[in-house]
């Protein structure tokens, strides 16, 4: 299914991205809630990068940061570049919907009172959109009469395909899919993911945010593991297929071992809340290899062809 791709420049590159929300505490006290810290990620054309990580690890926020739909109290530092061009809010607004497309999580992202067909074409688009809509509906095996349906009338599988078609119609070269498979059975989930593989094979860059990590291992080219709002490891999907021994970060190993088919062994503790982040390595409170040095800032380093944010990794 996957082909070896030539090494080329990344389409999207996220470097040292931090996102914090300005919050009000009791009374007039204010504080900053750092939900993403020093996150890095890159995707090349023709490639699927899957983002794995538990809820609250900042996966969706990253997607929202790239298209510029974070709430107003959010502050961004670090850089997001598209084809080497720095994406500021203005660029994001110009690029979203045309060069960058988001495939949202659920049917809640469709207007409940608007017919599906009209929503797939989107606003302010002309006749061409109508024609390509017909083609896309055919491609995703969506019946023409579905155009006249309202979102609440769609079944789970139809809804997924409709949401994907909103991204395909835009002809964007970067597609960010936020949890495209929840609630689908294995067959449907595979079918949904296959669509992204096809899109990547057509030369688009795909960022796949997912909870179904074992499926992602099979379909993606590279996997980024998120923990508490940062990237702890970024490695080839093959490494994840081979086993914990091939992985670099203790959290990725733990994640791998927690999968049902790999022993179903969870580790104690929980992901820290953004307001009470530990010093240095964010995983250190749960890490068996923790030392004094882990309280310093931990940089991303290259080990065995992958990147890892751990000083003890070998």
């Amino acid at each position, binding site marked *: 299914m996957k082909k070896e791709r030539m090494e080329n420049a990344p389409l999207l590159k996220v470097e040292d991205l931090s996102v914090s929300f300005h919050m009000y505490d009791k009374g007039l006290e204010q504080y900053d809630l750092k939900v993403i810290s020093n996150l890095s990620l890159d995707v090349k054309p023709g490639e699927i990068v899957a983002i794995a990580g538990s809820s609250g690890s900042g996966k969706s926020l990253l997607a*929202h940061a790239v298209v510029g739909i974070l709430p107003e109290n959010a502050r961004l530092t670090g850089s997001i570049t598209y084809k080497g061009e720095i994406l500021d809010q203005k660029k994001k607004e110009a690029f979203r919907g045309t060069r960058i497309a*988001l495939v949202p999580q*659920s049917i809640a992202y469709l*207007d409940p*009172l608007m017919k599906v067909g009209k929503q797939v074409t*989107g*606003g*302010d688009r002309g006749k061409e959109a109508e024609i390509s809509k017909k083609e896309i509906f055919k491609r995703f095996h969506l019946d023409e009469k579905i155009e006249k349906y309202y979102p*609440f*009338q769609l079944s789970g599988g139809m809804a997924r395909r409709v949401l994907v078609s909103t991204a395909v119609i835009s002809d964007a070269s970067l597609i960010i899919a936020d949890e495209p498979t929840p609630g689908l059975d294995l067959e449907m989930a595979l079918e949904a993911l296959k669509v992204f593989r096809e899109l990547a094979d057509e030369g688009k860059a795909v960022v796949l945010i997912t909870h179904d990590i074992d499926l992602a291992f099979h379909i993606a080219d590279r996997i980024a593991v998120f923990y508490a709002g940062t990237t702890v490891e970024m490695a080839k999907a093959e490494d994840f297929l081979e086993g914990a021994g091939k992985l670099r970060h203790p959290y990725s190993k733990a994640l791998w071992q927690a999968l049902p088919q790999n022993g179903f062994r969870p580790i104690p503790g929980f992901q820290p809340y953004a307001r009470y982040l530990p010093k240095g390595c964010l995983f250190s409170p749960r890490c068996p290899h923790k030392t004094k040095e882990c309280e310093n800032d931990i940089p991303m380093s290259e080990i065995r062809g992958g990147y890892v944010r751990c000083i003890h990794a070998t």
Partner: protein
Amino acid sequence: MKNKYYLKLTGKYLLRMVTLLIAVSIISFLLVSMSPVDPVQQYVGAVPNVSMEQRAKIAEYWGLNDPPVERFFAWGRSVLQGDFGVSLIYRRPVLDIIKEKFVTSLALMAAAWLFSGIIGFTVGCVMGAFHGKGPDKVLKKVCLIMCSIPTFWIGIVFLMVFSVKLGWFPMGMSVPKGVPTDQVTILQRIHHLILPALTLSFLSFANVALHTREKLVDVLESEYVMFAKARGESKWSILKRHGLRNIMLPAVTMQFGSFSELFGGSVLAENVFSYPGLGAAASAAGMGSDVPLLLGITLFSALFVFVGNMLANIIYGVVDPQIREGYRNE
């Protein structure tokens, strides 16, 4: 299939209406017969020297000595035949009075209703679009103040300011004094209508605005608006495509659900402005112990409020396909 559905729907509403009217007539008849109102006294009121025997004869003739249930059925029978009796204070058939007064009131209520709906919705949209910013803060305060002002009070203030001090509008009535009815121009009627209509619209204007604002804020923070933004839709396009339709439901609920408040408000507004409509007639009937007119107006107002709620229900279905689906599955 479709015809059958509409037939069923119509039947359902008719059934509801009939049961409502029966219930309202039983309750209001019961209340009136338990009240200390003496229709004979009211009838002979102005005429001096009516002896006790004569009074007893009138009571006998009217059947006032019969048991209440029997009287109710006697009244109900004639109501069914379209005979609501004769008003004691106007000395004319109740139905004629209701018709005549309602036409006058309708102009007032419709003007107030349209005014509060259009302005309320627009102000609500502006507040929602500028959520948390200057215009929103100012308008919200204005709306909250307006919500807490009683109708009759604002009516009196309007009279004092615009009629007495500034002299822009007449003091009351629906037509100028000393002008034959057929010579009253439409402009004169409108001139007389403006202040009472404004007063009456104060009742629901702020409510509609505040509800619309809340809903628009919700919609603008919703996931589908976020997604529309992510697809590159402009703020104006989002408001137009996703905003309007989604925020219409609360406004429709408020507007059509406010028929009862509109009617209640018209009693106050018409009294303050001596406007000869149904509201003024209702309070006159109450004050003057005019039982037939009071019962007639009560039934009519129940019908009026019912129609308002029914229209709201129908419009829900038109606006929201999910509700429409729900109706079909009922």
